[in-house]
């Protein structure tokens, strides 16, 4: 009979092996789901900053799980204890798994000691989204900012993470920058660890 190949059925999800997971997921399915997420939240809030907060919270939940999963899967059970370590983890490993490529750049802020920026020419989540003029500074990248915040905070590096559009000379569409501002205690601990 055709198709009698047995796939082992597991009674409970805890018995299923973790495995490598799907390497690729349909972009259109994700774009559709994300647009529904944004639209649903739009009906629930009164202003833009609340909408950004909600997207950020959604991303935070993803970040918390991604951190644990990737450390176990890709890093062979080693934790990150240093600032640069966790930043490069976010910049390469997390980005690669979520978006299929490493982030465009990771820079240290020049004005303040505690600021770092991850830049991307065009965020995957924004690819099919256009912001109407009356929504001003709203950025759907708040979702990605939430993911980064989830990863950093759960690893023990609390930070305020926001997404901004940065206009670039000679290009029509502005670049996106994820701005990470670490809390005081992170810098103090970094200084202590030397």
């Amino acid at each position, binding site marked *: 009979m055709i198709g009698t190949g047995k796939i082992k059925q597991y009674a409970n999800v805890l018995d299923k092996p973790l495995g490598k997971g799907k390497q690729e997921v349909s972009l259109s399915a994700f774009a559709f789901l994300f647009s529904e997420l944004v639209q649903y939240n739009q009906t629930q809030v009164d202003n833009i900053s609340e909408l950004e907060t909600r997207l950020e919270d959604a991303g935070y939940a993803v970040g918390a799980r991604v951190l644990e*999963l990737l450390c176990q899967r890709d890093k062979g059970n*080693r934790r990150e204890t240093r600032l640069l370590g966790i930043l490069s983890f976010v910049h390469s490993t997390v980005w690669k798994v979520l978006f299929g490529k490493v982030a465009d750049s990771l820079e240290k802020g020049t004005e303040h000691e505690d600021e770092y920026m991850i830049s991307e020419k065009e965020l995957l989540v924004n690819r099919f989204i256009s912001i109407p003029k009356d929504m001003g500074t709203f950025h759907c990248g708040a979702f990605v900012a939430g993911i980064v915040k989830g990863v950093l905070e759960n690893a023990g590096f609390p930070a305020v993470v926001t997404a901004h559009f940065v206009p670039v000379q000679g290009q029509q569409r502005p670049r996106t920058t994820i701005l990470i501002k670490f809390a005081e205690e992170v810098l103090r601990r970094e200084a202590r660890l030397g």
Partner: protein
Amino acid sequence: MTSTACFIIVSRNDIPIYEAEVGSAAKREDAAQLHQFVLHAALDIVQDLAWTTSAMFLKAIDRFNDLVVSVYVTAGHTRFMLLHDSRNEDGIKSFFQEVHELYIKILLNPLYLPGSRITSSHFDTKVRALARKYL
């Protein structure tokens, strides 16, 4: 061989999310409270130690009478703590790694709030089975 062992999972915010007495010795009423107290007292030590190494398994970090506290810290700073009297380090390390996998599977559930109590009875059964196997 009877052994006393108390296993606790403590979240990032120092709230216990799972507790189990997994030793094969007969349980005494006051022993359980004493074990929990010792484990919570060891949390301070874990906090400092966790930042000095990038390994997840921190071996024996504290002792109480003849009982030893071993700790395993995950990437999200969830601590698995075991109070035991055995000396089988490899067994304990394998135990922690297997429980870590179970914990990740629980965490991946989008309806599970990270940092809340783990109430799944299946998880409980599996942890106890692993304890009998490795400890």
